[in-house]
């Protein structure tokens, strides 16, 4: 059976949930071959094997962490040349998309980004124009390079004993030009990853800069906190939590938008959520057109009462 190259993303000393999703999708197309940038690691191999990776290729070259994007793309190009995969799947992160773009040029292959699904025949599904259209497409030339959005599929266990190898790659000087001179780690919020969370509670202009109720409700529901661009631009919440066209796209089971009017740029990032609740003072806010439940009222008052009630029930 033919190999399908996937690029594993690491988080907290193992691989990310979107990586497991890539493995599950890759099994539809062939045998998953996972590429990991880093030293050989038993825990990572074990996880990748549990989700169906038949091969794990470690790339320990330090260029991948010292320089932006290009060394990873070059290494993957060389691995692709030896594996000859039927497709290459990469997570739709900013870095993942740039790697994919460079790979497509190197391999003279068609590129599809931000797929929300991929079928056994390689047909992809994408949600475009702020989630207002669904597009199916396929790569018609070369090895399909596809980046996949988080939550495209539920990861499925498919235990295998992967073959482990360390790839000998040679990274050119041309790929070592955007030098990462420093890296300042960000403080973790301790909440679920925004793009992976089942529940997202978001605040916008209507919070007036006070996210206390947003955070407390998110914590009571085991969810993540998001913010609209207006709230981020006002300096009320960090950019990493921005939902919308220029931030994250989320598709949780439940999305609660508090004090967010629902401009097209915001809807682009949350329109495909399964259930949507909106709390807003303005009865005319466009967000209500998307909401399964809309509450016209002051968000601090509404969320305050909801938080009190949930706490009461939990006692």
């Amino acid at each position: 059976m033919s190999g399908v190259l996937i690029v594993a993303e690491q988080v907290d000393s193992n691989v990310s949930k979107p990586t497991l999703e890539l493995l599950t999708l890759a099994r539809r197309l062939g045998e998953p071959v996972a590429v990991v940038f880093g030293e050989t690691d038993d825990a990572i191999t074990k996880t990748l094997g549990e989700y169906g990776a038949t091969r794990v290729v470690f790339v320990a070259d330090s260029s991948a962490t010292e320089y932006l994007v290009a060394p990873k793309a070059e290494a993957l190009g060389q691995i692709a040349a030896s594996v000859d995969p039927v497709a290459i799947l990469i997570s739709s992160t900013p870095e993942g998309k740039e790697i994919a773009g460079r790979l497509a040029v190197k391999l003279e292959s068609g590129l599809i980004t931000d797929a929300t699904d991929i079928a056994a025949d390689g047909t992809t599904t994408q949600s475009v124009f702020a989630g207002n259209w669904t597009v199916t497409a396929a790569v018609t030339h070369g090895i399909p390079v596809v980046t996949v959005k988080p939550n495209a599929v539920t990861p499925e266990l498919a235990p295998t004993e992967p073959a482990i190898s360390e790839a000998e790659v040679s990274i050119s000087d041309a790929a070592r030009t955007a030098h990462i001179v420093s890296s300042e780690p960000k403080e973790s919020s301790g909440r679920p990853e925004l793009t992976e969370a089942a529940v997202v509670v978001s605040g916008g202009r209507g919070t007036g800069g006070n996210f206390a109720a947003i955070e407390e409700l998110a914590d009571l529901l085991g969810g993540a906190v998001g913010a609209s661009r207006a709230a981020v631009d006002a300096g009320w919440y960090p950019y990493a939590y921005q939902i919308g066209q220029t931030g994250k796209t989320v598709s949780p089971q439940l999305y609660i938008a508090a004090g967010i009017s629902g401009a097209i740029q915001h809807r682009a990032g949350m329109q495909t959520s399964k259930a949507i609740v909106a709390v807003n003072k303005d009865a005319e806010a466009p967000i209500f057109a998307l909401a399964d439940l809309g509450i016209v009222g002051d968000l601090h008052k509404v969320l305050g009462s909801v938080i009190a009630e949930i706490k009461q029930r939990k006692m």
Partner: protein
Amino acid sequence: MKIVVLAKYVPDATAERTFASDGTVDRTASAGLLSELDEYAVEQALQIAEDRDDVEVVIMTLGGEDAADAIKRALQMGASAAIHIIDDAVHGSDALATSLVLAAAIKKAGPDLVICGMASTDGTMGVIPAMIAERLGWPAATLGATLSVTEDRLMIRRDTDVASLMIEASLPAIVSVTDQSGEARYPSMKGILAAKKKPVESWTLADLGIDAAAVGLDAAWTKVLQTTPRPPKEQGRVVGDEDGAGSAALVEFLAAGKYI
């Protein structure tokens, strides 16, 4: 120093956006404009030009006749000149062919620095800067929340989910900047008047030495199979919050979904 800013003409995101019968974006259905995210790139170029006295800011746009509107806007903001790459054969090009044309045009223009937005607001792929860099063999410092430039080097800050990176590269280089890089200016009356006299060159594929058969819909390495509008969402329940009715409804909703 010569700076080229890539500026795309896109359909207005706040209008109804649709597809043409050949599966490409319908660029005639509503008026287009300069992609909002490219305004940040123009702004960064203009700021560099203000800090130094030897900077020429050239707008580069690949698109049809209407795309002149995007060029006009960028010139009104303060750019010095523009290059409009216009050729019917380009219609329907994928990201591969788009990057091929732009890379050839950049080579011909010979800038020290290319500044791009983080993504277009229509295709939203965010891959063109990386693809151009790959073709030119230039450094690519992408997704800068800040950008600073000296005589022969540049530095950006790139914020990821887990870290804030400082990235340095030598010129010539290509960078992209995010919407965090600083609000884009509005054209002044003086800028609007001055824009009318600024030079706009037209380049065709032949000027770039690119075979028309290498680009366009037929040469695309991806094929759109189907485009389907998202079915309109059924109107949900909207309640007021008189006497706490709203919070009660939300608690009930959360309980029904077993969130609490």
